[in-house]
């Protein structure tokens, strides 16, 4: 069997409002509702609604032969409920076809796995409950924030009963190996690991409309010819990308939706590839071996490491101070406090504090509501200082 596995990440953070020093202790609302709503509406119109319709049409056309998977963060679901119930309905329709798998992740798209197993498990459970409530399904495969993975994170996930986990097919962990096989966790072999084929994924997600790219324009025939050129023994091609690729990062005018609509037909016509969901792959294939990842990897930037979110002084100070509060938050057990604590953990807040803009500048700047990482840090710390005061007062 040779198969393509599509997984799309759906996430929107609760962006923070401009929070000044003078607000500390006086104002306990941290989020920029206007911006969050307008971004959600914009992305809904440009991406979520047309892309969902495209996939629904494809599923209706190809029946059992076309399948995809989504991972939708809890904070994105919350914002769909608040600002875009129409989008949530269309996702529900997709899931109801039975051809769409929903993956598990942390509720707030957080980096909690790196800091607190307890909080990580709490958030996974929260996400599980939310997905069950909204879509009526129970995920079996796990996706950690930004595809962050290490052997020990895989172990946590296996212990929670998940059958599979997906991550980046980072060159430095694969070495001579190919991402186009199923692997298993190095500590607990029961957990299967799917690796992203970043070359073919990024051809669609990043390079599709790049006129300087020697392969421009990308046609479905060309893409399928690349699939056919793979070693015939290779079994799976994992195409993992942000869902916002469709219509937001690659505008509709680039022809990205036409590419999507034509791809399954080209695959069936010119190749022997099928489409599968991650859990089908985990069920049906045997792993070829264990993948060893002692230090965390992610799908970001050239380095495929954590440095987009953690590592510089600003990020570490913010991150460490945030997680220091866990015991107190738990002790208080106040619903408002839990909620803010959750939303403050979203990885995007730390991403905005990244200072290595010069190598991967374009992507980082594109998503950043702040003028500089320093501004992002000061704003976050002002809010965190207020949050700490609330914890002390209660």
């Amino acid at each position, binding site marked *: 069997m040779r198969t393509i596995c599509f997984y799309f990440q759906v996430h929107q953070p609760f962006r923070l409002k401009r929070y000044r*020093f003078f607000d500390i202790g006086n104002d306990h609302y941290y989020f920029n509702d206007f911006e969050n709503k307008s971004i959600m509406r914009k992305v809904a119109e440009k991406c979520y609604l047309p892309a969902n319709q495209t996939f629904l049409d494809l599923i209706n056309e190809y029946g059992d032969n076309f399948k995809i998977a989504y991972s939708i963060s809890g904070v994105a679901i919350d914002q769909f409920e608040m600002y875009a119930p129409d989008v949530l309905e269309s996702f529900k329709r997709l899931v109801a076809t039975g051809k769409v798998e929903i993956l598990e992740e942390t509720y707030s798209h957080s980096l909690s796995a790196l800091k607190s197993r307890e909080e990580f498990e709490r958030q996974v459970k929260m996400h599980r409950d939310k997905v069950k409530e909204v879509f009526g399904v129970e995920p079996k495969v796990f996706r950690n924030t930004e595809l962050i993975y290490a052997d020990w994170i895989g172990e946590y996930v296996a212990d929670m009963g998940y059958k599979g986990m997906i991550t980046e097919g980072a060159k430095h962990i694969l070495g001579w190996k190919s991402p186009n096989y199923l692997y298993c966790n190095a500590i607990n072999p029961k957990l299967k690991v799917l690796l992203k084929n970043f070359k073919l994924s990024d051809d669609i997600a990043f390079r599709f409309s790049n006129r300087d790219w020697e392969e421009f324009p990308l046609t479905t025939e060309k893409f399928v010819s690349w699939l056919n050129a793979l070693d015939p023994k290779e079994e799976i091609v994992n195409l993992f990308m942000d869902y916002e690729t469709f219509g937001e990062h690659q505008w509709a005018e680039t022809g990205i939706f036409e590419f999507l609509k034509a791809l399954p037909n080209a695959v069936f016509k010119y190749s022997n590839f099928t489409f599968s969901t991650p859990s089908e792959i985990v069920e049906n294939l045997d792993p070829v071996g264990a993948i060893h990842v002692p230090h965390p990897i992610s799908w970001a930037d050239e380095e495929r490491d954590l440095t987009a979110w953690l590592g510089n002084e600003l990020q570490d100070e913010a991150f460490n101070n945030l997680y220091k509060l866990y015991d107190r938050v738990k002790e208080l057990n106040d619903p408002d406090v839990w909620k803010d604590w959750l939303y403050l953990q979203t990885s995007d807040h730390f991403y905005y504090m990244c200072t290595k803009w010069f190598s991967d500048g374009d992507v980082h700047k594109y998503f950043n509501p702040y003028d500089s990482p320093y501004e992002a*840090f000061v704003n976050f710390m002002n809010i*965190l*200082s207020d949050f700490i005061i609330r914890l002390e007062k209660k």
Partner: protein
Amino acid sequence: MKVLMFGWEFPPHITGGLGTACYGLTKGLSHFGTEIIFVVPKAYGDEDLTHVRLQNAGDVVITERKKEEHEFWNNFKYFEVGSNLIPYMDPEDFAKIFEGKIFSHTEFSEQVFASKFTFSGSYGKNLYEEVARYALIAAYIAATNEFDVIHAHDWLTYSAGIAAKNVSGKPLVVHMHATEFDRSGDNVNQKVYDIERAGMEAADRVIAVSNLTRKIIIEKYGIHPDKVVTVHNSVEPVSLPEEFKINKGFNEKIVTFLGRVTFQKGPDYFIEAAKKVIDRDPDVRFVMAGSGDMLNKMIKRVAKLGIATKFHFAGFLKGQEVYEMFSMSDVYVMPSVSEPFGISPLEAMMSDVPVIISKQSGVSEVLRHALKVDFWDVDDMADAIYGMLHYEGLSKMFKKYGKQEVENLRWENSAYKVNEVYKSLIK
């Protein structure tokens, strides 16, 4: 007495103490019946004009004829400052000049076109150009107005002051609010230094805002001591509405730094002292209000020291926000590496905030009720902050006597001395 005064900023549009000082001084001078034409590069229209006639340099219409005069003045040495004396104009006019037509003095008298100069009024990248163009306008204003003395504030306006002097023949006073050595340490910008020195050499009197500055002027610029007079700055009395005093959302005491976050102001020493205090007493918060080229570095340092939940950055504050900040503060620290004067501690004392100032500041010459430390001695600074926070007797005393002390510092007194300088020049 009528004074033609050149400034760079005027309240409420200020980026530092210069505008505040100009306002206080002109207000003080009005007590002695001295009339002032105050020229700024850019007027916004909402300045307080009770005491001065504000002339926006950007509103001066220069016609061709005036440009001929420009050429005439160009013969004077001082105007060699700029090949960049050319103002913004149409490419066509620009070309004409470069064809030498203006310099040839020929065919312009008939075709009159008027062009206004555009000033950004800020310390932007075309600063030298703006300084030079400002001088061009200054000469025009000097030629078309009546006055007895010219008074120029800081190097940005010295070219203007010299131009005005050369056109009118009136005496020139230049006012050193800061020297290039204060701003840049030993890495002075030679171009700025040259303009400063040229201004002081051309001047009939140099006013220094402190003895500290006077010493620098004499030692590092080689200006004759007899020409240099010290006139300390003062502070405008303010009465604060009560509503300011409710804005603090927490109980910890606040230690404040307020000023440009630049080398000159010593923000790094403040942070190191903060770390020492927080280590001893976590129930205190530090605030750095202001912006500047060292801000990002300071934010990073605070993160690195792990004190970011106790050390806050409030950004650049203006107008009422400054007094809001003071009303929340328990101690004000001015750790300047080199501060010609430093009005902000006086403003803090007005608001009942005890102050710690560096010995390397001009204001320390006039204040008795302030703790004085060496800017580099962060242990001493931390000690002073801790004492001010914890020993109520100390802070009470500084508040009480400090307020009395600043209330006796009046702009009228400073203005009186400045007025005496004018008088000595016109006889």
